């Protein structure tokens, strides 16, 4: 199925939650959806006949400077088509529902997004840091991140 057809299908089912279709001259087109509805939309994409996106290839957190966001890259192993979903989140206290119950692989990806950007995922079973130490301060991949001076008494900068 073409990306445009999948988008039309989704727009018909969720007229309110599907916000925008971004088609670029270079690279992959993507669909922006309402962050609050992400769980329902993903569940529909996985379970609907003809779509069956059973493979979440990548979940990434984003910092667009004026807002945060998450990006979901989906495959269907059966039909071999792909789809990209995006959400935008406000700068203050970003949070959205977790998709861990749909694709188990999202568990670690969401923890990483929390670790790097401070995006909170609701209903996640274990929302703690994953790469940085558990007592690390700040969210490193934010564009305005300033590194720590010392960690447990050891100097970090050069």
């Amino acid at each position, binding site marked *: 199925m073409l990306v445009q057809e999948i988008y039309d299908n989704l727009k018909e089912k969720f007229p309110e939650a599907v916000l925008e279709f971004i088609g670029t*001259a*270079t*690279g992959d087109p993507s669909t922006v959806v309402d962050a609050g509805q992400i769980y329902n939309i993903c569940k529909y994409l996985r379970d609907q006949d003809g779509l069956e996106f059973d493979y979440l290839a*990548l979940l*990434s957190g984003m910092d667009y400077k004026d807002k945060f966001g998450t990006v979901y*890259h989906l495959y269907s192993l059966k039909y071999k088509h792909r789809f990209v979903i995006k959400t935008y989140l406000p700068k203050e206290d970003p949070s959205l529902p977790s998709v861990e119950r749909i694709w188990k*692989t999202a568990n670690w990806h969401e923890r990483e997004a929390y670790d*790097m950007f401070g995006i909170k995922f609701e209903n996640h079973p274990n929302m703690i840091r994953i*790469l*940085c130490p558990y007592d690390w301060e700040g969210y490193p991949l934010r564009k305005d991140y300033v590194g720590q001076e010392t960690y447990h008494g050891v100097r970090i900068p050069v």
Partner: protein
Amino acid sequence: MERKFIEYDFGRVDSERMRLNVGPQHPSTHGVLRLEIELEGEIVTDVIPHIGYLHRCFEKYCEQMQYPQVIPYIDRLDYIASMNNEWPFVMGVEKMMNIQVPERVEYIRVIFAELNRIANHQIAVATFGMDAGAFTPFLYLFRDREMILNLFEHTSGARLLYNYFWVGGLAHDVPPNFKDTALNIIKTVRATNEEVMRLLMGNKIFVERTVKVGILPADVAINFACSGPVLRGSGVEWDLRKAQPYSIYDRFDFNVCVGSNEIGVIGDSWNRNIVRMNEMEQSCRIIEQAIAQMPNEGDVREKFPKKVRPPKGEIYCSAENPKGELGFYLVADGGNKPFRLKSRPTSFVNLAVLPEICKGYMVADLILILGSIDIVLGEVDR
């Protein structure tokens, strides 16, 4: 003499559950992985992986470096298969800048990527054998791996981290005796593989230890987004080289290897390893065909762009690494540095399935299951 089975009645025995720490310094964790395991006697009841002991800030670095400078950092993700790592990134940038690389470059890339796949699988099988207590295959496979590394060193100047695939071409041309050396390597690899098949994969002790251990059903593997030999060992025929052919992989005749019920059960540790052994043979076939078709003349640097500066946009480009699908999600803002480069790390995703498949096995089997997943901590932690 007839064997007698004697039944004892112990009544109900309750034991306390014990929490045990494996790693980060442990000979069998393949790096600095820490596992917190919960045991009931010898039986594993829970596993919690703690990662991040090698978190080297890769994604932060990509935002600070220009596009060509990013490639050396990508080498250091999965440092066993650096040639394969560079490919998806370079391919993604080329797609965005609309560069069509010359035929000869594509063939050389295929040959080097497949050679590196062989080298990676040699390490995977060798260290897995060592986890099971077989030391000899380790020596045999590392002896052959040196031949591949010598060719890489001759070509790119480095043994491990090559910085060889550049945007628009290759850093250098191949040495003059390249074809003969590559064919010679294939011959040796095939001979050793035959030996290892008998020595390790068909070994009664090894089979007893790995068959029916760590069974990963296909639906669980897909739900956890596993890829590479871990997914194919569970019987799912998914290989990006066939499913969405990139580069020139549609020109070669090769099979996608999947696990079978031949000796073990589909999805167990033995099957994940036999997939690796069979893939080495398929890689040899691809290299043979590529060497036969490869054009002899041509400049590998003629399509280099003057400035690597992709237009505004975003792309997700992935390729089949030895360990599975490695992808890069590149967001460009029109500048000479990536706005964001997020990698889809293969080992990170594959490792997440570990707690699911090792519950109920012995603690000695846990080490084997971890070995059969074949992780590299540089890629897990980045």
